[in-house]
């Protein structure tokens, strides 16, 4: 369990103001803890400098596992475990195996990716959300700083930053 943090956060009323504030914070080299928004804001990722998600790699790997599982399993059954001739076709009737191979590729890929997504985001049934403000999922846009190890004057500087960038509210919370 991670140690609880003292968070100082500003709430903005609009996504455009938030993105501008983030750019200002980046120029001032402030260390942003996280940004919370009610919806995926356009232009947020480049402003924050977030690296592109690598989730698609997980999708590809799981898909590959699915394809190999399906093709391997069907081939083993039809060629080695219990060979039966259907309609005069060869035991290893590859065209017949393609639909199921495709389906399992998609199935493994989708299920695997969702599990990876939930795991790396730390989400799951029963996980209690560390909500800074309940209005963040409604219409407030939140920029948060970790102030656990910060001096008082640094925090005052952050408050000033929030005021200058147009935050409608400035609050702090321990999460």
């Amino acid at each position: 369990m991670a140690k609880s943090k003292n968070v100082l956060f500003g709430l903005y009323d609009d996504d455009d103001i938030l993105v501008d504030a983030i750019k200002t914070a980046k120029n001032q080299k402030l260390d942003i803890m996280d940004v919370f928004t009610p919806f995926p804001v356009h232009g947020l990722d480049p402003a924050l400098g977030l690296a592109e998600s690598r989730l698609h790699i997980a999708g590809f790997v799981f898909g590959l596992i699915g394809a190999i599982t399906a093709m391997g399993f069907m081939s083993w059954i039809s060629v080695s475990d219990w060979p039966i001739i259907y309609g005069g076709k060869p035991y290893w009737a590859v065209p017949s195996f393609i639909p199921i191979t495709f389906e399992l590729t998609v199935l493994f890929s989708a299920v695997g990716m969702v599990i990876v997504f939930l795991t790396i985001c730390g989400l799951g049934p029963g996980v209690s959300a560390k909500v800074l403000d309940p209005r963040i999922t409604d219409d407030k846009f939140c920029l948060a700083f970790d102030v656990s190890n910060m001096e008082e004057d640094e925090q005052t500087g952050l408050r000033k930053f929030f005021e200058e960038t147009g935050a409608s509210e400035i609050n702090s919370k321990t999460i």
Partner: protein
Amino acid sequence: MGSITSPIREPLVTGNKTYGQITEDICAPTERAPSLAWVVAFMIANALAAIFLFASLWTVWQGIGTWDLNRTVGWGWDITNFVWWIGIGHAGTLISAILLLFRQKWRTGVNRAAEAMTIFAFVCAGQFLLIHMRRAWLAFFIFPYPNTRGPLWVNFNSPLLWDVFAISTYATVSILFWYVGLIPDLATVRDRARGFRKRIYGIFSFGWTGSAKHWQRWESLSLILAGLATPLVLSVHTIVSFDFATSVIPGWHTTIFPPYFVAGAIFSGFAMVQTLMIITRYALKLEDYITIGHIESMNKIILLTGTMVGVAYLTELFVAWYSGYIYEQFAFFNRAMGPYWFAYWAMMTCNLVTPQIFWWKKMRRNIYVTFIMSIFVNIGMWYERFVIIATTLARDYLPSSWSLYSPTWVEVGIFIGSIGLFFTLFLVFVRVAPVVAIAEIKHILKSSGDQYQEKNERYAEQKQFSEKN
């Protein structure tokens, strides 16, 4: 300023909404006491679902002999209903996946409800699969599991087995796609709720906070799931059509079946989405989110897919004649002029003729016409499956084994009841979850909200002006 859309595009969110109002409008139906109309509708749906339960238990208890199936007509209303429901399910994935890949913003208004509809249609379709297997408790035999009979495996060369995998994969992926999309919106409901409700929604929203990195991954996940679901949705009905097309029955043994079935599935699915959304937008007062523009867009798809299906009907007729193969020719003559002629002409009228009304913009944008048409299409597509299945089976190669088939009360009860089951699930859904994707509507507000239209227009003019000089 976020992304700018063309100023000539119709706004997708009307009523000068703010972010806060969007939350309020969409969450409110889950928070207030149910209206009288909902209660009445729920009771009717429940009563029908009870008929479903009784009739299907009757089938399981007494055996499949309670249906009117016979030696030639081995598939009747059961598979007709199964294909009908599966087809209806296709619209949800089409809206959420294919339209996502095509960056069609109007999908945001209807995708949540359409995906829910997909899942509920699947629940109904699955029932027919289970019941028609005669011994529903042995249904697990269809999966290749290590058993004590050898192990004797299932036949991987059979389209019926491909169907098992296609349907179960499709159901799983649809549920995942739908639920991943729901998580942020359930968090919105959670943050507005108090007490016990808050705890329940807390569990179901998986601890969502709206962190920037989570949103980025969420968008990435949605996009890849859409990319996976797109070929999947095409594969599912293709494989359903293989159930027929790989057999040697005249009228079934055709290569046109896969594209024709897929188009028909999308056609019937959109009709059901229209039926549901027209009622829902009125009952929940969501006219600002599901606008006439949305309805018109869906009508265009109905017109397109309906015409594709119509072309397939005519192509089938032409090819039957042109093939010079008397059994194929007879099969189609029999469909149009045989004992089930009414089903064929109902199909032709509802699927090919009447949707042509949507060539007129005035008709596409008329709610009453749309609603009536959506019912027509639902009926027409049901008849299509009946024509393909029962009519074809009733007239086999050997005239001595020709037979007729009409449903018993048990089959009718199961079908009518399955509609009740569908509506029961849908009515519960509109009470517990936001029917419109809140986060996605907020995401498009600045490019497609009506109050931004003027701003976008001004921006476009300025840009033109500055480019000129």
